């Protein structure tokens, strides 16, 4: 029985997981997800795919908001830039999908450099406001530059073929998303335990102190922003492929709020939290619909007419309730349960 966190060496402190069973359970989960496409019907499978894509995006935002403590209200801007970068490279100029994915990461990263450089010199909420502005500017820019983006008509995107493997079928595409989710998860976990990740967290916890310790605030904030935009862009490309059609309407502003809701619900600054939050937030509208439809068919009708509004209302409600009653999110709740379980009947 583990009764506490006794970490004696530096290696233990930066270990990816703090106990071996976690590896086993993770492996079981991965195997389950690999088998899932063959066992589930296509409706349930679409949720699995959406969750895997959203995990990539949420982990991207987690680097910025969770680790570094900077709010971005315009991450949908990077999502849409990534999706368009992929669509333009692959569908319009017939580049290989691998180049498309690299472009989907690099183009938002460059865009984030342009937005971030002026706004990250400042403290506090300014990044939230400039990213909000960015997401509106980028939407207008996409609609205006018709020769490149087809304006409001959008660009159709095919399922890709990577390294000789075709990801055309639904099952295969889920596997592709799973691959991206796992790679992103490892990448962000490793960033967190590196020198760079510790610098991010130091900035979040107290930026003046971090600066005194010799951390270049401007450079590290910008680095967090660029990394976050890169990962979000790739999530955008995946989402574009999933929709098989990239247009401005496919990426509503609500996605930015959804991403923040995911981080808050899951628990800020934790990769596990981002995953748990994604599962809850993606399934929340569907779960609410099922619960309500048990009561009356009238409620069910309301869901089908005002689905988008109901979804955003739920996100807002979840954000407020979690911040008020469980600010550490699902991860915090999980830690509390685990501690109670281990120490019962003692409280500590």
């Amino acid at each position, binding site marked *: 029985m583990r009764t506490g966190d006794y970490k004696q060496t530096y290696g233990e402190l930066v270990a990816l997981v703090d106990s071996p069973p976690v590896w086993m359970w993770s492996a079981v989960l991965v195997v389950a997800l690999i088998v899932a496409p063959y066992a589930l019907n296509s409706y349930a499978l679409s949720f699995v795919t959406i969750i895997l894509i959203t995990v990539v995006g949420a982990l991207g935002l987690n680097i910025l908001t969770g680790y570094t*403590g900077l*709010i971005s*209200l315009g991450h949908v801007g990077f999502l849409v830039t990534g999706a368009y970068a992929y669509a333009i490279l692959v569908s319009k100029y017939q580049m290989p999908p691998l180049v498309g994915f690299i472009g989907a990461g690099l183009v938002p990263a460059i865009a984030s450099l342009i*937005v971030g450089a*002026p*706004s990250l*010199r*400042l*403290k*506090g*909420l*300014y990044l*939230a*406001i*400039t990213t*909000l*502005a*960015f997401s*509106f*500017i980028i939407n*207008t*820019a996409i*609609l*205006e530059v018709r020769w490149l983006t087809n304006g409001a008509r959008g660009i159709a995107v095919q399922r890709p073929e990577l390294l000789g493997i075709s990801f055309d079928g639904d099952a295969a595409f889920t596997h592709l998303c799973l691959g991206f989710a796992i790679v992103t998860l490892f990448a962000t976990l490793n960033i967190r335990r590196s020198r760079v990740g510790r610098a991010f967290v130091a900035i979040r916890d107290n930026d*003046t102190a971090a600066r005194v310790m010799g951390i270049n605030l401007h450079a590290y904030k910008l680095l967090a922003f660029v990394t976050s935009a890169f990962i979000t862009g790739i999530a955008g490309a995946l989402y574009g492929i999933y929709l098989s059609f990239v247009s401005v309407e496919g990426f509503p502003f*609500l996605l930015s*709020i959804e991403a*923040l*809701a995911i981080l*808050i619900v899951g628990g800020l600054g934790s990769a596990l939290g981002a995953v748990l939050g994604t599962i809850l937030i993606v399934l929340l509208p569907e779960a609410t619909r099922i619960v309500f439809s048990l009561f009356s068919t009238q409620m069910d009708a309301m869901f089908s007419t*005002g689905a*988008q*509004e*109901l979804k*955003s*209302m739920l*996100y*807002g*409600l*979840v*954000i*407020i309730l979690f*911040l*008020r009653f469980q*600010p550490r999110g699902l991860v915090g709740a999980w830690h509390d349960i685990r501690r109670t379980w281990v120490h019962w009947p003692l409280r500590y």
Partner: protein
Amino acid sequence: MQYLTQLLISGLAIGAIYGLIAMGFAVIYKSTGLVNFAQGEMTMIIAYIAWTISTTAGGNLFLVSIGAIIAAIVLGLVIERVVMRPMLGEPLFATVMVTIGLAVILRSSINFIWDAYPHGLDVGFGRDIVRLGAIGIRTGQIAVITTLLLLLVAIWAFFRYSKFGVAMRAVAADDRTALLMGISAPRVHAAAWAASSVIAGIAGVFFAISYDLSPAMFQLGLKAFPATILGGLDAVLGSGIGGLLIGITENLAGGYLGSGMKEVAGFVMIIVVLMIRPFGIFGERDIERV
């Protein structure tokens, strides 16, 4: 020349609405230190309430304005008491996120309480066009510009001379010392939310009179952001003037550069302002002591 004057005047009119909403941002920022992302949504809700009153009361101007002001005060107080007060003392990040959550809830509630179609708020004036030489201007637009100027003077006097205004500035400057001086910070916060809600409501009603009500009205709040950044987040008067500047810029950009530029002119301006003078034209530079 006539085209330019017309653009300037309609820019001033829409700018006055941005200015009012921006003042709402600044009033809350000045007394609680947080940016209220739900300002545009509050504007929209109060405009819709005013519309409901006008349709039931037959467009009586007096009833509509009294009803809208009362509704605005109630809305502001309820939001402060139910949603914001429990977050007192929490980190800034959490408090700001709460206002974002509130914004999404208010925004989507429109479609459930009212509907998604545009409506005109008819109170018997506002849509008539007054001719000044060759230039046409709506009476509603004249009224909103006048209201903004009057409010600017009133708020300046309030913060400068009234005891409560000074107390609000004290809480904004240093809430702990203000508490020690016997000022009730929660009361100041409640007053700030109510005041900001009323200012937002005035903007919303004027917008509904001159243009139309629609569930997309919350975007006024986003348009007012550049105004308050330009004027300075902590400068109430600066925000009002910033609104006029943004309105004119937007209309000139729309008139000479195309409608796409009209939509983003304000946002481009935010990024430029933050690069050159991050605390705004009238804002105070933040000095941090360790």
